[in-house]
């Protein structure tokens, strides 16, 4: 895209983009670390990941302020307006993903106090899918790639399906090992939510790139075939 005539404005937009990317990469790392800590019962990594959430929270505040300043001082329009409003909303989803990573760490710390439990094999699969979706959503934001963003949205159903499969298996385990099963179920729910936030981000990216609001359109109930 052509550069702004006002280079200071261009710098402000570039800086906003950099800060969103930094926040995105920190959140991605938090989810990766949280899942590693969960698998390896690594309480040190879990605690370090919990501490990292503070940085993500601070970045959310900083990005919000940058967006408000840009809106107030530059009165952005068209693609700039879509970029700034997308950033403003996107950080909320990123911050929540950070919170979900801390939730996984909290469950990991609780599980570490008990004997090792068998991890449902669908949970790592869910984690992989959710992390890939998050990475692709952020990459689609960086590259303004609406096609890639749409592909993320379509993959949310895979994570939902995996969670639906995990649920009955873990519910059964509630009888014999209620505390562990409850915590594993929670981790499954957190991962399912990470995928939901990745989907939200991807939908925002479609809007940012194409100006089309695709929220609530991908999961429309299809009419029954007659």
């Amino acid at each position, binding site marked *: *895209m*052509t*550069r*702004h*005539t*006002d280079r200071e*404005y261009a710098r402000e937009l570039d800086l906003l983009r950099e800060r969103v990317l930094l926040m995105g990469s920190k959140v991605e790392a938090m989810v990766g670390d949280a899942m590693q800590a969960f698998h390896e019962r690594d309480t040190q990594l879990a605690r370090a990941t919990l501490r990292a959430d503070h940085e993500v929270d601070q970045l959310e505040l900083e990005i919000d302020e940058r967006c408000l300043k840009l809106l107030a001082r530059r*009165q*952005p*329009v*068209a*693609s*700039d*307006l*879509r970029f700034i409003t997308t950033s403003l909303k996107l950080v909320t989803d990123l911050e929540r993903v950070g919170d979900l990573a801390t939730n996984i760490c909290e469950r990991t710390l609780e599980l570490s106090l008990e004997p090792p439990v068998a991890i449902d094999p669908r949970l790592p699969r869910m984690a992989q899918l959710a992390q890939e979706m998050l990475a692709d959503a952020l990459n689609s934001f960086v590259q303004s790639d609406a096609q890639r963003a749409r592909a993320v949205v379509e993959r949310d159903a895979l994570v939902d399906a995996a969670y639906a499969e995990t649920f009955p298996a873990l519910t059964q385990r509630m009888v014999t090992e209620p505390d562990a099963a409850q915590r594993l179920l929670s981790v499954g729910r957190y991962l399912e939510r990470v995928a939901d936030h990745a989907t939200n981000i991807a939908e925002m990216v479609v809007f940012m790139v*194409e*100006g*089309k609001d695709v929220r609530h359109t991908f999961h429309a109930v299809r009419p029954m075939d007659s």
Partner: protein
Amino acid sequence: MNLEPAEPVVTAPTPKVKAPSAPGGAEEPSAPEVKLSAEDLRARFGTTQVLKGISMPIEARTVTAVIGPSGCGKSTFVRCLNRMHEVAPGAVVEGRVLLDGQDIYGAQVDPVLVRRHIGMVFQKPNPFPTLSIQDNVLAGLRLNGTRVPNPAEVVERRLRQVALWDEVKDGLDRSGTSLSGGQQQRLCIARSLALEPEVLLMDEPCSALDPIATARVEELIHELRADYTIVIVTHNMQQAARVADTTAFFYMGELVEYDQTDVIFTRPKQRKTEDYITGRFG
């Protein structure tokens, strides 16, 4: 509408007539009423082509903003809409401008009468300096030779219409130029409205005004939209975004994009529009 010379009269504004509903009671969406329409409009000064074939329908009782960089032809365009371009030496207009379907450039059409139907407000407030506030309001009517049976009533009505009455009612005999810039501009709008135009052209009406005076004029534009078709030329894109229903982007004498204002300022279709409104031009 008859644009051919006739005895000028002061008439009551035409009331809005609602289209009869379809049989069975269901309201059918009616096609938008086009008030003014440029058709392959070309304008030049001598050999310099300023407008290169603009075709643009303007819907009745809406506000249309015309934006674009300096020299893009936006002011020339609005000056063609009420036959003011041709007044300049060497100025030539080709193509058609239809007001309610009638070509204002038709052979039998009186340009003075056209300008009564299509009023204009300029960048710099231009009240007649030797005339009082009330005489400024009546100036257009008197210059047209219109008999005004009840001038005080016309003055009050038009000054109220532009929200100036309360500010000037105790000094109607004062000079029009004794008012502030914003008040002068509203006085000029009142003077245009006294002629009961159907279309109001505004060429940068707020560029000489402070933000409060600008807000008052914009508020007035919102109110006038109920009865008048307004075309506003502005360099201030936030103003276009605030007041206009539709926005046209002109570049080098051509109409690049013409769409709902919301669309132009959130997701324009043309790269040139995008670059201009986001400040990535040149």
